[in-house]
């Protein structure tokens, strides 16, 4: 695959504060890449560096192999959809969509055709002469998309574009954006803090925290094989426990020994254990490896969420079968569903109990 954008060892500091810490990232042609992370992780800064609105302190940005570090934003062959859209309030919908084309001094017929095409693409036919101020959030969003795509960019940068929409609309737009990207064959670089959004739309997710890319890969890989406890906590919900690697394929946590499929750790190395809530099996107490008691049952529609207190840890468990609150149960986990991770930066993970079971859905 062709690399269209390369970030080479990009760092960014504001005074003493490091926003980006030696970021290396490449983006393939026609890829839907999502930069995912909590606020302040550097994802928006990364996007702004690609867009040309910020200059990195060190490092280089390549576009099709050529440095664009000193190319001003208006000469870069990419377009941005800004947070809160940044539509021009003094222009109507058509004026906004035509903005880039008028600057390029395209003939009037071409512009008019493009306006019509773009508004059809985003389902806003007949809105040409409407004021952007009279539009709803979702419609403004669509105008912003039409305005950016009218310039036929090779890369579209999207800075949390769905953040201001309500849940229903957000879900619709996620699918629409993904379809648009597939149909138009444009590379999308998408910034969000919403893990579900990232999983839904992306070909590739780069999880960022504190100015670094922690893990990059396909959504499935990131969900199933998180590299460390942060990624696990951020993507999907998880139970994160402290464990000790006894030997290859044997790990102990929650006062029990489990078979696992990980190896290559030192003997008795302290590790983080990540178990997804849907991967814990509830069984009869004498059958389980860990014994516990159900403290709470929440009906979530597709499944029940149960909180089980076992060995001083509050487990979060998703199952379609309910075990009533107060019941004594056993827990078991299959070897390939136990994710063993090295401790982050030698930092001890002191979180336990309900904090450890905290999901990223919040």
């Amino acid at each position, binding site marked *: 695959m062709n690399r269209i954008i390369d970030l080479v060892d990009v760092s960014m500091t504001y005074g003493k504060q490091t926003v980006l810490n030696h970021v290396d990232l490449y983006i393939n042609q026609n890829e839907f890449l999502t930069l995912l992370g909590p606020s302040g992780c550097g994802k928006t800064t990364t996007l702004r560096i690609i867009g040309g609105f910020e200059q990195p302190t060190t490092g280089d940005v390549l576009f099709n192999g050529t440095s664009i570090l000193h190319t001003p*934003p208006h000469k870069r062959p990419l377009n941005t959809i*800004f*947070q809160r859209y940044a539509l*021009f309030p003094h222009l109507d919908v058509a004026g906004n969509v035509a903005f880039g084309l008028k*600057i390029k001094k395209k003939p009037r017929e071409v512009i008019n055709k493009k306006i019509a095409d773009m508004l059809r693409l985003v389902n806003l036919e007949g809105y040409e002469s409407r004021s952007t101020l009279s539009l709803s959030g979702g419609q403004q969003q669509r105008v912003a998309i039409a305005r950016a795509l009218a310039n036929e960019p090779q890369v579209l940068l999207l800075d949390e574009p769905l953040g201001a929409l309500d849940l229903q609309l957000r879900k619709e737009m996620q699918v629409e954006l993904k379809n648009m990207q597939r149909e138009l064959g444009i590379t999308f670089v998408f910034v969000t803090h919403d893990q579900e959004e990232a999983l839904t739309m992306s070909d590739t997710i780069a999880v960022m925290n504190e100015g670094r890319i922690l893990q990059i890969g396909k959504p499935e890989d990131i969900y199933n094989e998180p590299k460390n406890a942060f990624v696990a906590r951020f993507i999907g919900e998880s139970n994160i426990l402290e464990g000790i690697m006894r030997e290859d394929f044997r790990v102990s946590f929650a006062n029990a020994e489990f078979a696992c499929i990980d190896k290559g750790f030192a003997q008795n190395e302290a590790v983080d254990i990540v178990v997804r809530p849907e991967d814990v099996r509830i069984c009869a107490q004498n059958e389980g490896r860990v014994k516990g008691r159900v403290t709470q049952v929440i009906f979530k529609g597709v499944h029940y969420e149960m909180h089980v207190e076992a060995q001083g840890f509050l487990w979060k468990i998703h199952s379609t079968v309910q075990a009533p609150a107060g019941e004594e149960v056993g827990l078991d986990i299959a070897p390939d569903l136990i994710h063993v991770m090295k401790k982050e930066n030698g930092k001890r993970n002191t979180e336990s109990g309900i904090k450890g079971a905290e999901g990223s859905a919040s």
Partner: protein
Amino acid sequence: MKRLFAYPYILWMGIFIVVPLLLVVYYSVTATGPDGNTIFTFDHFRRFFAPITPGMDQPLRERIFVSVALRSIRLALQSTGICLLLGYPVAYIMTRKEYSEKSVLLFMLLVPMWMNFLLRTYAWLTILERNGLVNQLLSRMGLPMIDILYTDAAVLLGMVYNFLPFMILPIYTSLKKMDPRLIEAAQDLGAGGVSVFARVVFPLSLPGVISGITMVFMPGAATFIISNLLGGQQYFLLGNLVEMQFLNVGDWHFGSAIAVIMMLLMVASMVILSLFDKGENQGRSTII
């Protein structure tokens, strides 16, 4: 309950604005008839537009009041234009500055306004007079002296000096309100510096420009103190004409008629300006 608090102001406006206005209109269309009765007439307006013999030694008849009005309008337009050309860049630069620098600039802009208006204008007298500051400097440098006091240029200078802050502040406010992301969006869509300004920054600052123009043009067209001090006793603008009719000549009827003409002029200019504002920025206040 809330409405109650508005009553004192409404009362104030009624007594000191509406009633005097009606009186002015009343005086402008009435005259004292031969038998001492008050009669209704448009003679004062007719007189304003009629050619008259200005002086004993000048046999030429000219429309002297109309030419005074035209001069007033010309000077007001000129000062508005100069204020806009000088003020816009200042306002623009101010929005781009860091907070501390911005405060210093704003402060410098406002300090002269703390001084009395008359005093400020008098100060120009000593700067511009024949042996004033400017000419002393020029002669020290061996340059020819200039004599601009009591000319159009001096009046214009005084007007620009006094009204400039009223141009800068509304423009500054409207520029400051602008979302900086709009500039980035324009750049993103391919607009270079000039294009960004012409297509986004300037159109979005139009409400400020228009209130700036209003706030400079109106007092500019009505001024009589600046023209009196820097233009001299013989220098007449519409404002001076009104002042003279009321204070020196004592012809309240004619003075009122001139005042009404001035008001109509203002209303007309406001209407013209509001046409520019319309549609450009729905829902955006033009008030600073």
